[in-house]
């Protein structure tokens, strides 16, 4: 906490000599961008609550209508949305917790422990990030078949338990946030390596670790391609696959689809209200040191 407090002023920049005023145009741009950022979410709700007929006229209605509950019921009738929510939470939470733990340990090793090949191996890890996921997707699919994981949540959880990005991220965080003196003190007290990690390192990086967990959770919530390939029965769908199911074969029911999209997004928006600031800090932290 104290670390953050001392770092905070730097994040705002403090150029005393340059007395630039913020021009009204800057605010205009920001307000415009804010509008553009928010509008699609608002629009999802408007279309979902107005019904397709209201939308198919000119000018279209731009305020929410009274039919959102009806559309929600339609979504529930078409796909097992609650089950999909539960599945998505199971995958998201498992992946987030596992990533914080495994990437944290590996990042700790790369940041603070001495071992042969440390510098080469971290380069290898960074290098693996360059491989596009499509390259291995067919064998992955075959592998999932051989493991009997097709149409199970294992196919989504296990390959995502630990990622190169997470390891690299945790290494950067531990390197910059955990002072060596702290570790020295711990070892003088006779703490072993594992204990040092759980009792000394983790409390210091807790806030950044949470950011990694959040990003993993968001990533797995929003993942679409891989779940679409491996999940087959509606009872096993994640939220994204479920709302994809709302697309008809011939016609697109906009109200239904936008209702699904809104229902799939609303939980994240709610979460964002609480963690948005942290995520901003996380993106910026990763950028400077990465």
């Amino acid at each position, binding site marked *: 906490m104290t670390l953050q407090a001392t770092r905070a002023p*730097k*994040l*705002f*920049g*403090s*150029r005393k*000599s*340059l007395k630039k005023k*913020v021009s009204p145009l800057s605010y205009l741009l*920001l307000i415009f*961008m804010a509008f553009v*950022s928010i509008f*699609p*979410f608002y629009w*999802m709700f408007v279309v979902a609550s107005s019904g397709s007929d209201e*939308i198919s*006229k000119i000018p*279209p209605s731009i305020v929410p209508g009274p039919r959102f509950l009806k559309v929600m019921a339609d979504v529930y009738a078409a796909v097992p949305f609650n089950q999909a929510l539960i599945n998505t939470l199971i995958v998201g939470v498992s992946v987030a917790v596992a990533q914080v733990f495994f990437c944290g340990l*590996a990042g*700790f090793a790369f940041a603070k422990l*001495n071992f042969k090949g440390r510098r080469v*191996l971290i380069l290898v890890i960074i290098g*693996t990030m*360059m*491989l*596009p996921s*499509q*390259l*291995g*997707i*067919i*064998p*992955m699919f*075959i592998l999932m078949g051989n493991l009997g994981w097709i149409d199970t949540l294992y196919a989504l959880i296990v*390959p995502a338990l*630990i990622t190169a990005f997470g390891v690299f991220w945790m290494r950067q965080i531990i390197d910059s946030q955990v002072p060596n*003196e702290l570790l020295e003190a711990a*070892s*003088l007290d*006779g703490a*072993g*390596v594992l204990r040092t990690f759980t009792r000394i390192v983790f409390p210091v990086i807790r806030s950044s670790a949470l950011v990694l967990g959040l990003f993993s959770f968001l990533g797995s919530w*929003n993942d*679409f*391609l891989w779940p679409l*390939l491996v999940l087959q029965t509606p009872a096993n769908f994640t939220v994204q696959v479920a*709302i*994809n199911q709302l697309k008809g074969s011939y016609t*697109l029911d906009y109200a239904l*689809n*936008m209702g699904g*999209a809104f229902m*799939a*997004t609303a939980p994240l928006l709610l*979460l964002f209200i609480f963690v948005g600031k942290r995520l*901003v800090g996380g993106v*910026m932290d990763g*950028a*400077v040191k*990465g």
Partner: protein
Amino acid sequence: MSNTTLRSPNPWRASSKPQARKLGQLKKHESRWAFLFISPFFLMFLVFGLAPVLFSTYIAFFSWDPLGDTKFIGIDNFTYLVNDSRFWQATGNTFSIWAFSTFPQMILALFLASVLRNPKLRAPIFWRTLLLIPNITSVLAVAIVFGQLFGRDFGMINVVLGFMGFQHIDFVSNPLAGHIAIATMITWRWVGYNALIFLAAMIAIPNELYESAELDGASRWQQFRYVTLPGLRNTITFVIIVGTIGGLQVFAEPLTLSGNFNGGDSRQFSTLTLFLFEQMFVEQKYGYAAAIGIAITFIVLIISLINFLLTRRIASEGSK
């Protein structure tokens, strides 16, 4: 980080204090613990990363039917690929979408970052947070809502165009307009995120550089051109490479807009990844799909290299 750290008797840092001897127990097992901690990654990578990649390369040399029929055919998949007009069309579509999303987005993100950089800006955290909201949305939800906004008859964008006296644009049947629509979805989702990355890098540029530039009488544009831009060199390279890897994987937006794995009636939205999935799941040609995957990887590597060289050159010109 230096080599002396590795040889130091003290595991945590180079300078060895007298007490370092007491670290015996910790130090003795240090590398054993380290290997234990990093082994999960390499184990998982071996199974779910490296093995699939190697196997993918292997099956690219086969005519591979998932139902059992496999036949070694040498480089036939690759010769077929380079002669397949669908592949080149998909490559063209992918690059068109990539260009429309990357360049305007970079400029807008840099611009936003400079605005956010201003220390006098009110409520900076509020604006930063707002800009990140689109990034938490799923690609599918983005595709659904923008698909409606870009609709031919009743989409908000065409309604507005109509009010302004323009003709409606069919964003589905007109390839160029469709590519711009998809690029808009990508830009919407990523521009705020990238602005934050640029902002962080801008804040890291020492103020002295700006001060001395100002003393030399540099205009704001010149300061941007000769101080900010070279300072952001690595960041811009990083953002473009990451964006390119993402850009070559674009498929949910074109799939939603065209409603079909073939990317529309004239394959106008068939991107490389969509083409791969079409071959894999619709046509069941695993060998051919694997060859497409390898082609995508080569394209990523080539673009990354070009990016790297280009940003180096631009930045070194800037610092002259």
